């Protein structure tokens, strides 16, 4: 009974951590989120994406071809609540909450005893890594949820022959939720089939047929850049070639892969350093609170005791499938690509918890201690997530774009040129915040080479806005407002070209993000004439 109550509390707290101030923390909307938001808006209103393609298999966006499922499903909150930050992030938050609940079910399915499933659920529910991903309006948590559903069904195939169908359906859906989930799905398919070989029945074959059927639209594009662009673009070929001079190509490749894979299991990465990417991490905290490292270190010792157990088999299957993708990409420790490692990591930590609890023999006391350090870790999560993140990382999350859209909206009769040297790509964010009518925007786009032409020009023009670099010889002679950051337009240039400052947008730290200057072509031309006259006489 008390276990149920504790589980409900953990789910409620986890939900709070995922839903509280969802629209404003993180402050701003990262470009990947606005891509989702605007395309969902476009699909909801017109049934086509920003380019005018009806329900595409991959969204071209600005040439990165993300998987479409998250965007498709986001059309529902966008229709219900309108186009805003909350709508775009809601599906991710709900997926994150479901991931917490699924952790409990999977651990119970793996025969973890007593409070162990609860410990695992708490570790996932209060993990800064999972919370941040749940508050990001991108595909990460949805694909993890679908992948975990597949795992849940795979673990139930003994005695539930129709579970294979659930396994394959969710595996197929996961591959539409996140490009990085496709190799994971392949890993799950091969390794779970091998593990559960004795339980392979006709339903396995039926499931496989459904799986292939679900994948058909993707398989049709197998030769197109849209299918492979995301994966090949992130591979560390250059690093291998550099090392190959010292240690031959195969050894260099193994070296690179092993070093990357090891870093995903290193306590230093998991509990201290986290992701180096400022957008994918929280200030001052890693993927898990450092206090839980002791469980992880001790948990490795539990591997021997689990030999031949389903828990160890699950660890191997989930660990191998989960580490493969991140270890093949060049980022040292990508928290997004490594999300499928959450279960193996928590499994090891749970073993560690149990090992200590058994050693000290006072289960209640140790459980109380666990709750105490969990509460202690929550203080640090609160600090990083709700105090520091919206303050010191606002500029990373493209804070200021909303204000810029508002400034433009206030001056509908004027033309704007927005420079984007350091803020690429700006166009999608302006489309998002201005809720620019999709049918108008689609009319300016071409659908030719949608899946094959990966070059998506970032220079765009819509409404009263041009998004491109400032051409000083031309643009100061046009009546318009030039927008850029502090480096785009200096005070000296403003004075020289008679530019009048009309607005300035700052982040919470006081850092200038955007400045808007109105050109004065007539005054500039007069001054040039005077200069010419002075030179002549």
């Amino acid at each position, binding site marked *: 009974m008390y276990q149920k109550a504790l589980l409900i509390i953990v789910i409620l707290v986890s939900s709070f951590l995922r839903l509280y101030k969802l629209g404003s923390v993180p402050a701003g909307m990262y470009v990947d989120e606005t891509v989702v938001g605007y395309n969902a808006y476009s699909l909801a209103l017109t049934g086509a994406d920003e380019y005018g393609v009806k329900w595409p298999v991959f969204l071209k966006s600005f040439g990165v071809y993300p998987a479409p499922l998250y965007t498709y499903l986001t059309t529902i909150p966008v229709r219900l609540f309108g186009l805003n930050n909350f709508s775009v992030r809601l599906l991710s938050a709900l997926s994150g909450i479901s991931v917490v609940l699924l952790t409990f079910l999977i651990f119970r399915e793996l025969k973890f005893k007593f409070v162990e499933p609860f410990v695992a659920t708490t570790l996932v529910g209060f993990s800064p890594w999972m919370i941040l991903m749940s508050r990001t309006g991108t595909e990460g948590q949805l694909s993890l949820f679908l992948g975990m559903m597949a795992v849940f069904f795979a673990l139930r195939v003994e005695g539930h022959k129709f579970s294979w169908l659930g396994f394959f359906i969710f595996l197929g859906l996961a591959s539409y939720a996140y490009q990085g989930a496709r190799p994971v799905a392949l890993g799950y398919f091969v390794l779970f089939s091998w593990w559960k070989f004795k339980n392979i029945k006709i339903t396995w074959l039926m499931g496989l047929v459904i799986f292939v059927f679900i994948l058909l639209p993707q398989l049709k594009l197998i030769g197109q850049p849209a299918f492979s662009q995301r994966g090949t673009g992130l591979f560390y070929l250059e690093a291998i070639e550099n090392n190959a001079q010292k240690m031959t190509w195969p050894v260099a490749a193994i*070296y*690179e892969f*092993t*070093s*990357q894979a*090891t*870093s995903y*299991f*290193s*306590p*230093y*990465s998991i*509990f*201290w*350093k986290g992701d*180096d990417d400022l957008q994918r991490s929280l*200030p*001052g905290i890693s993927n898990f609170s*450092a206090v839980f*490292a002791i469980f992880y*270190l*001790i948990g*490795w*010792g539990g*591997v*021997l*005791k689990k030999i031949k157990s389903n828990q160890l088999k699950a660890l191997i299957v989930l660990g191998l499938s989960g580490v493969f993708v991140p270890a093949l990409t*060049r980022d*040292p*420790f990508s928290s997004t690509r490594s999300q499928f490692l959450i279960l193996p990591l928590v499994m090891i930590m749970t073993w560690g918890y149990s090992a200590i609890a058994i050693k000290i023999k006072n289960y209640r006391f140790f459980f109380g201690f666990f709750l105490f350090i969990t509460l202690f870790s929550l*203080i*640090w999560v609160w*600090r990083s997530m709700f*105090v*520091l993140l919206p*303050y*010191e990382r606002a500029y990373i999350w493209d804070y200021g774009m909303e204000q810029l859209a508002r400034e433009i909206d206030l001056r509908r009769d004027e033309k704007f040129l927005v420079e984007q040297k350091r803020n690429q790509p700006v166009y999608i964010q302006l489309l998002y915040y201005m809720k620019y009518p999709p049918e108008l925007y689609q009319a300016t786009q071409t659908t030719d080479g949608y899946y094959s032409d990966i070059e998506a020009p970032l220079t765009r023009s819509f409404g009263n806005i041009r998004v491109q670099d400032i051409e000083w010889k031309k643009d100061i002679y046009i009546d318009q407002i030039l927008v850029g950051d502090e480096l785009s337009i200096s005070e000296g240039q403003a004075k020289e070209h008679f530019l009048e400052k009309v607005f300035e947008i700052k982040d*919470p*730290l006081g850092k200038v993000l955007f400045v808007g200057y109105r050109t004065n072509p007539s005054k500039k031309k007069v001054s040039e004439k005077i200069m010419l006259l002075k030179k002549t006489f």
Partner: protein
Amino acid sequence: MGVAKMGFIAAIVNLWWMSVYRESPIWGLLFLFVGLTSVWGYRKNKFLILFFILASLLVAQVKITKARSLTEIANDDRRLIDLRLSAYPPITFLPIAHWLEQKPITVASKRMAESLFENLDPNQYFFGNHPRERTGHIEIQKLIFIFLPFSLVGFIFLGNKHKGFLIINLFGLIILSYFGNFTQFGNIFLYPLLLISIDEGGRCIRKLC
């Protein structure tokens, strides 16, 4: 045969003692000797010798580490702390911002934790900290990365067979975290443990095969 003597092979074929040798041949050879003796001592259950080696390495590690203050706040730290203090909502009845950002014990524990976690990173020993090279540190590859699987298996077995030995090493690391990690040759204190884990791993794999 080779797998069974993996610890000795790793003690001889490693880049760590060679790096020390390049700086000082005497210390380099002594380091090689320490490695071989550690593996031999472990195999023969001479834990007193191992304990002596660990104690000596701990002292040596402290001597070669450029110690840093745990509580001193440099200009860069001050700037970050001030910035973060201004992010907190105004809570007057509890100085939470002060506790979490600049209380000496908080600053000290963060620094100690950083040192500890750096030393627990297997990439530091097998890949010269690649792919997460640290700024301000000279990263050297210490052990050849092909020994990594043996070391991992060995650690798991050591965790079951000789918990005490692992705890002594962890305790040593906690002491060292007080001094920081600014050394030319990395964390030499863990050298015996790494070689022993490789040796144990090699023997376990041989038994399994």
